[in-house]
């Protein structure tokens, strides 16, 4: 185990508490999808990314795009814990006047590098950022987290094609492969299979990992960073609702607000 992993595990647990609390207080949100990306977001924001919370617009910073914008409570919690904005913003999620919109808004939230929420756009947006970085002589990386269900969108494959053609080696995409979309199992709803194989067919460098294992996440990122001549995808097998037993793999938690009893039970579990 890498020496930083215990810290990352503890941070992930904190983010999960923040996420469930935010959704409980907002009375709205997507717990399942937020919880499955926690380790990916934690690894990026607390170990990997070259960022400066005091300068969210720093031109040389690494970029992050949450293509599955509905998972943004995880991103907001990470940004707050990392110091981009005060923790007391978190309870304002989805409320009138809040800088924390229901889906990410780059104009309202410090540290949000790109507006998202309408599914399927992260890779195209990220490809543009990576291409701009190359033209401008920057060496930042662009990290994108996309859902698996949103790979149904045609624009995803348009962008996968272009990014490979342009050899955007500094574009690193994670697929949060939790196996579910709104109406059911990804395989059942849309027939999507062999995600890595599909990316590979377009010329991408591919890896498959356990998306909740920090050692695997960090190693995969290092391998992807070394791949300079083509974009990389890391298909991260995850559990929707990970970390709260009664939420895990129960798709009714795709969009659902916990009752008080459920909230307290989750907090107890996450504090243990």
């Amino acid at each position, binding site marked *: 185990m890498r020496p930083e992993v215990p810290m990352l595990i503890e941070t992930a647990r904190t983010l999960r508490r923040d996420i469930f609390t935010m959704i409980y207080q907002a009375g709205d949100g997507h717990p399942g999808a937020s919880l499955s990306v926690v380790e990916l977001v934690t690894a990026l924001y607390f170990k990997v990314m070259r960022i400066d919370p005091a300068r969210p617009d720093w031109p040389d910073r690494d970029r992050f795009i949450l293509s599955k914008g509905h998972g943004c409570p995880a991103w907001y919690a990470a940004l707050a814990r990392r110091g981009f904005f005060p923790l007391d913003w978190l309870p304002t999620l989805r409320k009138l006047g809040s800088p924390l919109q229901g889906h990410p808004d780059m104009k309202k939230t410090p540290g949000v590098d790109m507006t998202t929420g309408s599914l399927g756009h992260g890779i195209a947006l990220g490809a*543009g*950022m990576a291409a701009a970085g190359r033209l401008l002589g920057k060496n930042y990386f662009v990290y994108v987290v996309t859902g698996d269900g949103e790979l149904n969108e045609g624009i995803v494959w348009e962008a996968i094609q272009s990014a490979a053609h*342009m050899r955007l080696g500094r574009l690193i995409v994670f697929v949060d492969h939790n196996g579910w979309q709104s109406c059911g199992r990804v395989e059942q709803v849309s027939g999507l299979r062999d995600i890595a194989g599909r990316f590979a067919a377009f010329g991408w460098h591919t890896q498959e990992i356990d998306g909740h294992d920090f050692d695997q996440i960090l190693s995969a990122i290092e391998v992807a960073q070394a791949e300079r001549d083509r974009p990389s995808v890391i298909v991260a097998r995850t559990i929707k609702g990970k970390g709260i037993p009664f939420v895990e793999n129960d798709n009714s938690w795709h969009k659902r607000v916990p009752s008080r009893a459920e909230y307290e039970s989750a907090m107890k579990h996450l504090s243990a």
Partner: protein
Amino acid sequence: MARTIPTDTMASTRDAFATALIEAAAADPRICLLSADSLKAARATAFAEKFPDRVFEVGICEQAAVAFAAGLASAGLKPFFCTYGCFITMRACEQIRTFVAYPGLDVKFVGLNGGIYGGEREGVTHMVFEDIGILRAVPGIEIVVPADAGQTRKATLAIANRRGPVYLRIGSGRDPVIFDESVGFEFGKLRLVREYGTDAAIFANGPVLKRAIVAADKLAEQGIKTTLVEVHTIKPLDVDAIVEVLSRTGAAVTVEDHNIYGGLGSAIAEVIAERAPARLIRLGLRDVFPESGEAEQLFDHFGFGVQHICDAVRRLIMLKG
């Protein structure tokens, strides 16, 4: 009165755009060009030769092109995306709205084949007569419809110097010359093209302005004195100046190469309803699908001919009483 060209001279708005973009890009290293296999249609191969690193070819995928442009702009570049207006504003409508206009990113859109005139022989699939209405409904994006090639060049330079999203509607490359080269272009301001009198106002833009000029001149010879106004900037609309014209004339005809819903006619109707009561007749495509044909014939066939404009003005004057 703005100096206009009486002859049937033609000049390409596409070439004018491409030339102006080279000029703008030479002065501003942030300017780059997005192509959805549309480099040739945009007449931008010379741009690509001059600035090879600043052309991003994504292939035939307008949605990804717009999202890609948003990514470029977020990192400090100033991308222009040029392809057929129908594919920009309809296929990539949501990408424009959510990823460019909403975050206010500095992306410029240049729509070719504007109107039925621009699409002419291509037919409905490659025409666009809904673009202005669609984009007027989107907050945070500016809309310009230059009259001709010379104005396209100046409008391109003008929008290159603006921050934020803009849609520029141009034509097929076979576009009538309307204004003398000495005529300037002031973003956001209407232009009085003819000031014969206050019997009625005629509001027009784009290539169809040529016909409105002919109609206004012809009417003047017959003693009917109109004020002909070019509204090249549809958003932001020069509302106060429009109110001033309407308060003088009390009657208006709008002439546009667009469906009568959502475009210039609707914009003027909104000003009339809220600020300056006046009689109004809207000329444009009357909520029907047009068809392939020669551009000038299409205008006549679908109701934007010189005679249609003259008849509308006469009818208005009768209605005014």
